[in-house]
């Protein structure tokens, strides 16, 4: 369980990192918090020729507030965001979901952007980004571009990011007046990857439910304001459309059941806490 050999570059500036990434192509990997990359290296599921460590690039350690979004740069650790006193009012959904991301001992190292880059289908941070219709900001040596969360997550651990691009930051839309948010998940133990995780966003006109752990990527669906059996039926249709599969953690049937029950729970909670 030792990584295969690789070169290591501790980039001091974004330019240095992008130049190395440009040169290294698919053989190079960005190293941020390392909480998903290192296990993959140890198990030799990944064998890059070059690791580019971006954690000491000052420009990548910022959390900045824009008009309607909070922008979290690539080297910002999950624990730093969770410890932000204003997070609960800025992005309540992220504040609710972050304690479920890994453990105290991994959030202290892992980054927000790293989780987005890894794109595990059951991960909480990509789920929140999809639920809130957030945005991923990519940069290569030649260009920058912004991609909506819904377009960014393509499949199982597969994203729209090119080999020469790094995630410079992700933008979470700030709480909008009149919207309520809720998050819930079921896993074997707290801190494990979710079997199913749900995020709900409700305003005066619509209910939006995003689901992780069922399809190959986090998927969201908008509903009009529903309740009673109409809501049950809508959730049931959504649960089937996600095409759950059996695996060692849970059966497809159990997953559909969680989509129906957790989905209803988060939508009701989100509706109740509309501000």
């Amino acid at each position, binding site marked *: 369980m030792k990584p295969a050999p690789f070169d290591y570059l501790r980039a001091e500036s974004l330019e240095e990192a992008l130049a190395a990434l440009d040169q290294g192509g698919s053989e190079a990997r960005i190293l941020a918090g390392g909480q998903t990359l290192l296990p993959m290296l*140890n198990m030799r599921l990944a064998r890059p020729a070059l690791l580019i460590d971006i954690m000491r690039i000052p420009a990548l350690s910022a959390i900045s507030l824009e008009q309607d979004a909070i922008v979290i740069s690539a080297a910002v650790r999950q624990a730093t965001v969770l410890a932000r006193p204003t997070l609960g009012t800025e992005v309540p959904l992220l504040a609710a979901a972050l304690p479920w991301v890994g453990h105290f*001992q991994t959030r202290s190292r892992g980054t927000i952007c790293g989780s987005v880059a890894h794109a595990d289908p059951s991960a909480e941070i990509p789920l929140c980004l999809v639920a809130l219709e957030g945005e991923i900001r990519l940069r290569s040596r030649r260009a920058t571009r912004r991609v909506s969360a819904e377009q960014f997550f393509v499949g199982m651990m597969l994203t729209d990011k090119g080999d020469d691009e790094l995630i410079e930051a992700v933008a979470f839309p700030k709480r909008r007046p009149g919207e309520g948010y809720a998050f819930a998940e079921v896993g074997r133990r707290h801190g494990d990857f979710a079997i199913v995780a749900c995020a709900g966003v409700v305003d005066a006109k619509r209910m939006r439910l995003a689901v992780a752990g069922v399809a190959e990527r986090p998927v969201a669906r908008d509903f009009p304001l529903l309740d009673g059996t109409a809501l049950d039926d809508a959730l049931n249709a959504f649960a089937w459309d996600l095409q759950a599969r059996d695996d060692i953690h849970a059966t497809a049937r159990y997953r559909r059941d969680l989509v129906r029950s957790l989905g209803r729970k988060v939508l009701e909670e989100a509706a109740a806490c509309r501000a």
Partner: protein
Amino acid sequence: MPRLNAGTRHVVRFTLNGRPAAFEVEPRMLLTDALRHLLGATGTHVGCEHGVCGCCTVLIDGMPARACLTLAVQAEGCEIRTIEGLAPSPARLSILQAAFRRHHALQCGFCTAGILMSLEAFLATRPDPSAEELREVLSGHLCRCTGYAPMIAAALEAAAKLREDAVHV
């Protein structure tokens, strides 16, 4: 910084338990192996080597980190604390360690070093934790012996004692 070559060893300097330290490592060497094999600091244990068990937890700049998910080269310039640095002197245990002993919060001791480092970091930021919060911190560790309950009791007692001591300084 120049690119560190895969096949060569590079000097990495940092502080270990308050003292300057260094090792010479290939980029692929894990911090666990560098601490244990190159510095003989075998208090940090290795259980799973992929981030699941928590045995290898150390503090990097005051924050807990799984040393098996950290490259030795990442330690450059950092302050590393390990279990060897917890006791105030060879003849005395720290308050947390003494509470673990009193409550039989360890049996084989394989998991203990990592758990003590986690709790050390947690109590520093959260001096008055609830049992619930402590349970959540411990969810990042596996212990096959104790059933965890005595660890919660020990941590609560240590936290109370640390708060009391803080008042009297």
